[in-house]
């Protein structure tokens, strides 16, 4: 790249970079600085306290539980979303019956695309309202009323869903760290998958459409079944896209704030009994529902830890899935 071109690009980027520096980088720096003080968020007088907040953080029971919940989300949400999105994208693009018209998707694929993408256009607040109705814990809830009509659930013992703190498997304790998947968290993951599949479906669809049709036709001519086509042809050619999706979903899994706050019981969400608390929701309740005078600084330490964990995750993810040989077509 010539020097003139760099200057040209920098000229255009000047305003965005200034905005980025003022509204993103400066607050980042501020947060990192506050995390080693006893800043209350209210008074401009505060003192440097070293890394005490961090030491406390990693012996804080609720934070470790919240971290465990993020790990559960991180292991389930990206995998299921990607698998479903890949499957649907394949069916919509190349999964149809191969005949004279060549390779194509299942019948009515454009309608399905619209349906799958629909949750993506809804704001998270609307998603929360809809799903609260679906999971409502009495005969007014969609699932409960259905199960009651079928006689599977007794009228006076409705399923609690978002108010259920029991784990779907017996909790595993590793030192201070508890690994569990409360029902409420599983409900949230289901909603996140429902909301996320559409976007990745479109991402993978676009990628599949850019794969030349003759590759699929050649596979079909050679007698490959749909399953073989998927695993031997489609998936390897989508490697880059899956890797990107994985990073996005991983970051979303380490966040998960909006769903927790919008849907779960308790002040600021995270309930019942911290069963759906994730790192970001716990951070916010420390910052804005302070238990002691330096809670804001403690929340800043949490914010920095979340950022570091997310960066480490993204770096590891990109390294692991980096493709060694590029396929050109």
């Amino acid at each position: 790249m010539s020097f003139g071109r760099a200057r040209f690009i920098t000229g255009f980027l000047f305003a965005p970079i200034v905005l980025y520096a003022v509204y993103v980088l400066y607050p980042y720096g501020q947060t990192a600085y506050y995390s080693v003080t006893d800043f209350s968020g209210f008074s401009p007088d505060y003192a440097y306290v070293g890394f005490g907040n961090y030491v406390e953080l990693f012996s804080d029971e609720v934070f470790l539980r919240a971290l465990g919940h993020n790990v559960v989300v991180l292991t389930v949400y990206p995998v299921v979303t990607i698998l479903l999105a890949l499957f649907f994208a394949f069916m919509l693009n190349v999964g149809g019956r191969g005949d004279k018209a060549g390779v194509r998707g299942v019948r009515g694929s454009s309608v399905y695309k619209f349906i799958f993408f629909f949750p993506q256009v809804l704001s998270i607040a609307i998603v929360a309202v809809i799903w609260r109705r679906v999971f409502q814990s009495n005969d007014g809830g969609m699932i409960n009323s259905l199960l009651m009509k079928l006689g599977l659930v007794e009228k006076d013992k409705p399923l609690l869903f978002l108010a259920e703190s029991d784990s779907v498997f017996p909790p595993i304790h590793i030192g201070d760290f508890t690994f569990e998947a409360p029902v409420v968290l599983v409900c949230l993951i289901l909603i996140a998958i429902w909301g996320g599949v559409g976007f990745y479906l479109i991402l993978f669809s676009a990628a599949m459409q850019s794969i030349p049709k003759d590759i699929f036709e050649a596979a079909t001519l050679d007698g490959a079944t749909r399953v073989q086509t998927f695993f031997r042809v489609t998936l390897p050619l989508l490697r880059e896209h899956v890797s990107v999706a994985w990073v996005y979903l991983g970051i979303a899994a380490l966040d998960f704030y909006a769903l927790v706050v919008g849907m779960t019981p308790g002040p600021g969400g995270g309930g019942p009994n911290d069963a759906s608390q994730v790192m970001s929701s716990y951070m916010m309740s420390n910052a804005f529902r302070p238990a002691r005078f330096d809670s804001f600084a403690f929340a800043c330490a949490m914010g920095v830890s979340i950022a570091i964990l997310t960066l480490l995750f993204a770096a590891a993810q990109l390294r692991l899935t980096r493709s060694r040989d590029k396929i050109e077509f």
Partner: protein
Amino acid sequence: MTVTPDSPSELNRRTVLRRAAAVGLLAAPAISALAACASEDGEGGTTAEKTTANPFGVGDKQPLEVAFFNGGFGEDYAKFDVAAYEAKWPGSKVELKFSKTILTDYQPRFYGGNPPDVLNNSSPETIPVGPVVQGGQLVDLTALLDAPSYDDPAVKVRDTLVAGVVEEGTFNGKMYTLNYAYSIYGHWYDEALFAKEGWTVPKTWDEFATLAEAAKKKGIAAYTFQGIHPWYIHNVITEWIYKVGGKEAILKIDNLEPDAWKQDAVKVAAERIAEMASKGWIQAGASGLDHTTTQQAVLDGKALFIWCGSWLEGEMAKTLPASVKLAVAPPWDLSASDKTKYGTVHAAPGEGFIVPTKAKNPAGGQEFLRMMLGKEQARKFAELTKSLPVVKGAADGLTISSALSSASKVAAAAPEVINWRYAGWYVPLQNAVFAAATDLAAGKSSAAAFQAAVQKAADEVAKDDKIVKQKAS
């Protein structure tokens, strides 16, 4: 399409991020310098001599900034108060602001050292008094309490207030918050339904149990609670602990005494809630429902009692059937040996007002509050908001609403008016009661588990020297 690796430009995202991070780290130390500037701003504002008529020495033509919470009480009473202030201090322009999120809107102004002169510190998220007091940012309102009242210079402001206002607003031994509205709490029910079924309001646990079984046969739950908002059920259990153990038991809790939550009173109260859950007297699935859904269940005759404050009727006005007649009952006796008599009512001042020290006109701020506590303004508050102010006798002779009259009647007849302090002082302890009491009412836990969980939180608060301890008496 060609799949290529990241384009090899010098300005790729990662490099930019790396460089930017370095810049961010360098910028951080500059913040303390900025902060130091912000704290330079001084007191100021007092320009006139302090007299009986002007106890705070409000200066002539001193502008005043007041910020009100825009919630259940609406905007009208604030506008009335501002008009009254401007009439008394002609030339003092009052800037009136409303906010639905006091914390979000006013935290930066505390930090920046330019807060308003009066702040109505109410809303779902309020400015936490503890940290702000520790920073010396709130005016001690003792001077306001000892100032002559607005209507009669011979009577101090302190003596015009109902009991509990000073205690409720006190932190570290001084009153920093003036709570302006007086709420009466209790178990609300539909009088019309009780009359129709020939039921009477229970006075003892046995009467409640008989009623609950009778209601169950009719497919009605005897009890419900505002599930996903645990503040309500935490009030029920604390109220019941007080009912059983009396003030002595609650003081142990407020003062974080060892094993305060292991007392018998706590055990009895928790057992009663667990019993209601296990016998199926609580509305099915209530722990997952919100306040409007469960409150509506009482209005619809699907549940008999719900604990709430005197704002209930106003809150549910839109969906209140005409046939329903809301009334409030005090907690029934929970054991044969309750320390407090039947009829004991929980009532407390709320809707706080604070005056920041770094405000430009704190004298005007205190004068504004003194005027708000005047007879005429307090009465107007009752009329406009259908709620009681903390000024004695302010709503006498006013017929506001049947629910509020019922509440006032119950409060007037009460042998003892009760309240407690731990919830406002110790957030982690309140959180523990939130979680444990909800589990109890959802039928997921036992009295022993409740006691253990809350005691653990209380012990942690007691030994955490970063939490400032208060003393109740």
